[in-house]
């Protein structure tokens, strides 16, 4: 994450300004390989080393929760310039202020837990 600069606020900003292919390339190439790989796993019925089924359950159906949740997430992603993975990476890299963002993320998660039954899903 760090070496590819995906953890850099600047790169996220640039992504939302469509200023470079870089971030789209990262997500896109991961996706292309991901799709191919998962299709292979499904067709050949490959199992994980513990012998159970691969954790590939379909996501619960719905629209509103994905759209609203997604939009809220996106707002935060662009503001903080980081999604959860990069947050931890940046903490390891020594950027102390990201701890505030992480704290916010845990708080936001907690808030969701409290409010979820009142939200449209």
């Amino acid at each position, binding site marked *: 994450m760090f070496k590819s600069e995906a953890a850099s606020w600047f790169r996220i900003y640039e992504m939302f300004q469509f200023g470079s292919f870089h971030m789209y390339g990262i997500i896109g190439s991961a996706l292309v390989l991901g799709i191919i790989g998962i299709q292979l796993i499904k067709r050949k019925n490959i199992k*994980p080393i513990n012998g159970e089924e691969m954790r590939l359950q379909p996501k619960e159906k719905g629209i509103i929760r994905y759209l609203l949740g997604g939009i809220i*997430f996106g707002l935060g992603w662009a503001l903080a310039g980081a999604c959860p993975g990069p947050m931890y990476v940046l903490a390891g890299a020594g950027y102390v202020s990201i701890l505030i963002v992480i704290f916010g993320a845990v708080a936001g998660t907690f808030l969701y837990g409290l409010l979820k039954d009142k939200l449209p899903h």
Partner: protein
Amino acid sequence: MNWIYDPWPWYVAGPLIALVMFVLLFVGKQFGMSSNLRTACAVVGAGKAADFFKFDWKAERWNLMVVLGAIIGGFIAATYMSDNTVAINPAVAQQLATDYNITSAGDSYLPPELFSTEALSNPFIILILLVGGVLVGFGARYAGGCTSGHAISGLSNLQLPSLIAVIGFFIGGLVMVHLLYPLIF
């Protein structure tokens, strides 16, 4: 290319991310970087406040191992393998400077205007970082995943809900950058 110090191109990073996803699948887990937030809440007892956190978090402790890995990875990459600058599209960098007075693009990994310890003495900056985090945490749980769980894992599995989530991510990001930034900064 000096692979130790130069930034890694997208065609290296993307495949590596896919690799991480497959490794996690092969050990019977899945690739998602936000459920650890829920696990973290449960670990500190949030189960008493809301049913959402009453689950067998001990079985999901591996989440926290992945987090630890990310932290270590960040440490190694930043300390031993980087000059900590990020070069972005010059037009975007210029716009950041003229519109928002963020002149550090190209000099640093994170804009010190928002992330340095000096910046933290400004409560407005702290608020921005906090709100950003809260939105990410709340949104990720509401949508049931973040970029790794939906854009990478979910879309790789051709899940429609993940596509909706990713569209949401982008709407949110674009709204923030194009409509809200001018108001905030």
